Each structure stands twice: as structure tokens, then as C-alpha cells.
């Protein structure tokens, strides 16, 4: 049984970690929940029992911290799914509705630190994808501006994610449905993955997240939009809490021009498959062999 396989290891872990940290923690008011959080196992090594306990503890913690009852899902990947994203560069007008839709849905820290999973780049028309010309902070009165194209960039959910390869503690991994996720309770905050990501898909919680309690989204996923901790890494999950239920990600719903497309790459009737089959598509920085599942295309 899988449960037994780890039991001895668990014991060693508990014993040694307790011994190593007994001294460190003795100074702090050593509450049971804190100790449990400290000793929490890696998400992939948790049994169903462990998960339930962890979820309960987290829900209690969030209730205490934000005064709201959260429901933390641990829904796994559906078999036969591989999520893919399409973004129509000929329609994007650079209005950043997606950015703030994402902020709201995924409980991002609002300011100090401000945390965004999506970056919209403004590029001069003519030679596309020369990122050296990218402007991140454009702020005109109205968009689209003539002479520019806009290119939103977020985590590309690579098939060969460099960020996963470099993580020294396996705190990030690729799920069976292709989502690259982070266990916020396992990340040690070394930021090696940020250095490794060619798409700036990862961001860091430079301080304790700052979320107005009334704007909290309480329907969360353990691997997704639950409120994060300070000093851990964070990234777009294609709204794992939504897409595993069959709902469109928040950025798709926020987009006013229908630029964003989402679907199952394994389903031949999905929108994403149709656009890959019928439109000219490209993926960013293909020479790095990361094989993103984020397809930019031209709908026009």
C-alpha cells in the first residue's frame, strides 16, 4: 500500500525534523497548528487522509486570518485532458482586463507587493516578437493605439518546463493535465525557477499578500488561488480551480474582445484544436524547446 510505503520515511522525517527544529521552535509560541504546518508533507506524498487534515487546518487558518470560510478543493486532473490556451494576437487591444480579472479571481496581493500573473506587452507594428521593443507600462487614454500590437504573456505551461527542472525541492511540478503548479507550502523561496523561466511566468510574493477581505474569492484550489504566503513563488495555473470543473479561466471571461481561447488539446472538437488546425499559430521562444501549451494565433 502506498500509505505504508512512506510510513518509515515519515517517521524518520518527523523525528529528525522535530529534533533539528526543536531548538528553533522552542523560542516561538509553539502551537499545534504551527508545528503541523511546519511538518506538512509534500502535496504529492499526502494520503487522502493527510489532504483532508491539511485542508481543514488551512480552512481554519484562513477563517481566522480573513474572517471568511474558504472551500479548498483538491480536485485532481481529469483523465484524457490536456489543457491548451489560444490567444488571438489580431484581436488583443491591450486593455488589461484580463490582468485584473485574474487578480480578482486568484486572490492576488493588490499592492505592496503588487502581484500580476499576466503581463501585457506593447510592441511596435512591423516586426513582431522582438521583445526588446516591448513596453510594459504603456498607459494611453484609449487602446488600441495605432501602430502597435499587444501581446499578453503569462505562464505558458510548457511540456518541458525549465522551472520544474531547476527546483531544488520539487516544490513545483507538471500535473497530468499539463498544468504546472506550485505547492506553496513546500517552496523554500530560492527563486531559481524565476531565473529559469523564459516567459517571466513566475512571480514572487515579496511580502505578505495584501488582499481586501471583501474582495476575497473563497472558492479556491490547494494548488491554485488560495491566499499565498510571503516569500514563496507563485504562478498562473490556468485557473486550476475553474478549468477542472469545466469552466473557462477568469482571463478568458474577462476579455472584452474574445481574444482568449481555452480548451482540451486531446478533444478533437474543442475550440483550441480548431484554431490550431485552422489558424496560423506560433509559440513563444520555440528554440528553447520548452514546448509551451500556449498558442498565439492570428484569427484574422
Amino acid at each position, binding site marked *: 500500500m502506498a500509505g505504508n510505503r512512506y510510513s518509515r520515511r515519515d517517521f524518520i522525517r518527523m523525528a529528525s525534523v522535530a529534533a533539528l527544529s526543536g531548538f528553533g521552535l522552542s523560542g516561538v509560541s509553539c502551537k499545534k497548528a504551527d508545528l503541523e504546518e511546519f511538518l506538512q508533507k509534500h502535496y504529492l506524498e499526502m494520503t487522502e487522509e493527510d489532504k483532508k487534515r491539511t485542508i481543514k487546518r488551512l480552512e481554519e487558518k484562513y477563517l481566522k486570518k480573513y474572517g471568511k470560510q474558504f472551500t479548498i478543493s483538491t480536485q485532481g486532473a481529469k483523465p484524457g485532458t490536456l489543457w491548451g490556451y489560444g490567444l488571438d494576437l489580431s484581436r488583443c487591444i491591450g486593455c488589461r482586463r484580463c490582468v485584473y480579472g485574474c487578480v480578482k479571481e486568484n486572490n492576488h496581493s493588490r*499592492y505592496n507587493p503588487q502581484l500580476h500573473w499576466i503581463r501585457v506587452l506593447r510592441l511596435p507594428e512591423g516586426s513582431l516578437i522582438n521583445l526588446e521593443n516591448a513596453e510594459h507600462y504603456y498607459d494611453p487614454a*484609449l487602446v488600441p493605439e495605432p501602430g502597435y500590437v499587444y501581446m499578453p504573456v503569462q505562464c505558458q505551461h510548457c511540456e518541458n518546463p525549465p522551472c520544474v527542472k531547476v527546483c531544488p525541492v520539487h516544490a513545483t511540478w507538471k500535473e497530468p493535465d499539463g498544468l504546472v503548479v506550485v505547492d506553496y507550502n513546500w517552496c523554500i523561496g530560492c527563486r531559481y525557477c524565476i531565473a529559469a523561466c523564459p516567459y517571466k511566468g513566475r512571480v514572487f510574493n515579496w511580502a505578505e499578500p495584501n488582499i481586501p477581505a471583501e474582495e476575497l474569492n473563497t472558492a479556491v484550489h490547494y494548488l491554485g488561488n488560495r491566499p499565498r504566503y510571503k516569500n514563496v513563488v507563485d504562478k498562473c495555473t490556468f485557473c486550476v480551480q475553474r478549468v477542472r470543473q469545466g469552466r473557462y479561466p477568469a482571463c478568458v471571461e474577462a476579455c472584452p474582445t474574445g481574444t482568449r481561447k*481555452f480548451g482540451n488539446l486531446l478533444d478533437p472538437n474543442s475550440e483550441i484544436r480548431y484554431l490550431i488546425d485552422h489558424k496560423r499559430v506560433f509559440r513563444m521562444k520555440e528554440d528553447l524547446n520548452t514546448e509551451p501549451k500556449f498558442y498565439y494565433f492570428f484569427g484574422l
Partner: protein
Amino acid sequence: MYYSKQQDVCLERVNMRRIVLLSFLLSLFVFCWVLDGRAKEEDFPVPRPPFSEGIFPCSNCHAGMEANTKRRELKEEHTNIQLKHGSVSRWCLDCHDATNRDMLKLASGEHIDFSHSYELCGQCHGPTYRDWKVGVHGKRIGYFDGGPRTYFLCVNCHNPHDPKFKPIKPEPPPFKPLYKYNPAARSGK
């Protein structure tokens, strides 16, 4: 491409299902055609069309009115409508039905509901209509899989009288690094 995993295995099953489904649809199609005199387009889950406030149903005003089919500039009513959609060759009654104002009119003369306006648009914008039907053009929200979803109508984004997408105000840019408390620091280089 990553989707060929189990394709071959289920292909046959899918094909069988498809044949059954197709023959069923075909018979339905023939039935409807006979009944309705025309092949009905697929129904899409669309939201209520974005009517101007308090204007629909049009028959509220138009019911007792004599239909003037002469092409002209509207002076008393609907003056807010500036037709910038092939305005040289087109006017109101090309799309709005003269006899039943609560309906739209296709080129064939057939009446359709406002919630089916995509058929009207699709008459000219064929490739766009094709893309819209499969979900590549236009916006959809809700469940892409196993739940209700909404297909936005053409007119949800494009004003039918002036269809060019209007520029909008963008949301604020992200803060520059080292921005702390002062929002003014945001615009600095």
C-alpha cells in the same frame, strides 16, 4: 501536437456515433425543412441582445405606424443612430423587417428573431461566422465542458450600426519595481 494519444482507438467508435447522430440530425433537418420551408440554423446559447433602454419590443411604437419603405434620413426618431456599416448601399429595412418590427429579415426575406442575429451578420461575414460558430471568433463564457455557457452575439461587441470596435480605456499598468506606497511613482520612468 499532443492530442493523438488515444485517437485511433476511439476513432471508430466516434465515427459510428457520428453516423448515428448525423442520420438523426439529417432526418430532423428534413423534417424541419418540410415543416418550416427552410433549413434552420443551429441554436446557440446567446445572451439577450443589447437593446437600447426601453426600446424593445419595437412594435410598441411601430404597431400602428404606416411603414415607409423609402430610403431616407431619419429626422424624428432614432436620430442617435449613425449608420457606419456600408451606409452607401444599405439602410434600416435591409435588416429590420418592415412588416414585423420585432423581427429581423434575412436576404431571403425570411424573418428571424433578434437572438438569431448572427445569421443575419453571417450572410456577409462568412468566414467570421464560421469562426464564431466554432468559438474562434468572439467571446464565450461559462463552462466549456459539461455546463451552461454563453456565446456572445456579434452585436454584444459590435454595434450593428457602427461595427468597428471602439477603443476603450485600459486598466492601469503594473507598478514599476521598487514602487512602494506612492502611486505617483508609477508613472515615473
